[in-house]
């Protein structure tokens, strides 16, 4: 048969590939993020933590990677928006009754919703921490990130917003991690169970460590 050459990136599978690729990139960023956060557990009044935060805010390589990170987020979001639109138009007339609960997990069907919640959380999160850091760098001042942590997480409202945001992250990761591997075609009867359980534990651990931070700060365990 003759060989048609559709554009890979505009094909449905190509778009999913980009979603998975950017998704995994963001997932890898979370590891860095969580490691830096974990510095508060030295419980040294944020000394180590601030050092790490300072490094992240000022190092040139990190600065460049940061641009990539934002591009990744934007690509992930834009691509998702396109896919959701297409997917919605693939079924213009909806079912009167649809019972999907028996055949799939709710969070696998709610990636768009979870993603939107995550985006909203991200905006709050950036406003809380990233913007003040940037302002400080811009002004050439020293910014005590740890102190601002304590201030921000003293509010129970913020704490709840963060916990909800992290819950969204957990479910988003729970599906997204193994889904990305399937999209890349990386399945194997020997290794897939490993990838799946790795994805599960990754989601659990990352979320728990992230969540522990506002909680411990709020409760005053970390000072």
């Amino acid at each position, binding site marked *: *048969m*003759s*060989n*048609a*050459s*559709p554009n*890979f990136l505009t*094909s*449905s*599978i*190509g*778009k*999913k*590939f980009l979603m998975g690729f950017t998704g995994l990139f963001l997932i890898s960023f979370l590891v860095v993020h969580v490691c830096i956060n974990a510095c508060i557990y030295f419980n040294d009044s944020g000394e180590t933590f601030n050092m790490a935060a300072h490094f992240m805010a000022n190092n040139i390589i990190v600065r460049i990677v940061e641009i990539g990170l934002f591009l990744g987020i934007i690509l992930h979001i834009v691509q998702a928006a396109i*896919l959701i639109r*297409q*997917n919605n*138009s*693939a*079924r*213009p*007339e*909806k*079912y*009167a*009754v*649809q*019972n*999907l609960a*028996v*055949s*799939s*997990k709710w969070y*696998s*069907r709610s*990636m768009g919703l979870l993603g939107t919640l995550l985006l909203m959380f991200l905006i709050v999160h950036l406003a809380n921490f990233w913007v003040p850091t940037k302002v400080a760098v811009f002004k050439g001042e020293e910014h005590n990130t740890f102190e601002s942590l304590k201030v921000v997480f003293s509010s129970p409202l913020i704490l709840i917003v963060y916990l909800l945001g992290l819950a969204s992250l957990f479910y988003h990761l729970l*599906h997204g991690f*193994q*889904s990305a591997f*399937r*999209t*890349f*075609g*990386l*399945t194997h009867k020997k290794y897939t169970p490993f990838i799946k359980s790795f994805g599960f534990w990754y989601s659990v651990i990352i979320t728990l460590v992230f969540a522990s931070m506002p909680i411990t700060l709020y409760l005053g365990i970390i000072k």
Partner: protein
Amino acid sequence: MSHGNMNLTLKIWRQNSGKEPGQLVTYPVKDISPDMSFLEMFDVLNEQLVSKNENPIVFDHDCREGICGMCSMVINGRAHGPKTGITTCQLHMRSFKDGDTIVVEPWRAQAFPVIKDLTVDRSAFERIQAKGGFVSVNTGTAQDANCLPIPKDDADASFNAAACIGCGACVATCKNASAMLFVAAKVSQFALLPQGRVEATARVKNMVAQMDAEGFGSCTNTGACEVECPKGISLENIARMNREFLVANCKD
């Protein structure tokens, strides 16, 4: 004519043609036997409608033994009804209770427009297959069948993919109305065999291009298609197609 003792309320999608709007219409049915198949229950209802000089409900069905892939009903929100691993025609009334209300709708997808009532047009599947669902071998050119040993595991995996009956339950179930499981089953069936490897690159590209052109959604890997597939076609095939597609696109 008395059959059994179940009384049910059916809410069935009626739509005169693709151009007109449709709606759910309520029909009570009485004296249904639990030994009846779901479609035989429809026969009873249609017989009643004919006796009242009304138009019977049009639905696709043929072999009534779960292999032709013609029957296609979403019953109470599930493709082919509440049980897994069977088609609508294999569903029996003993899966329901006396007094139940049952909602029956057609497959719903942009690529599967309603023709009438519960009948939809699945010709999109045909067009996808015509793009590459074959090995280009003319009649009479084949070598002896045993000249090409094929590992049993590969042959079995290929068979499992080839068990697809093309009913479209995967599309009907998928929240995105994606046809990935169907196309992946076809691609895999050939990709797993040496006969199919020759044209593997062109096949996967052509079939995916046609799938996209038909207006199916994309795959979110929710896995619902695998659960509702009456033949248990594995998600593994979707991964294989993704891999094939990626490799095919890297090649040129």
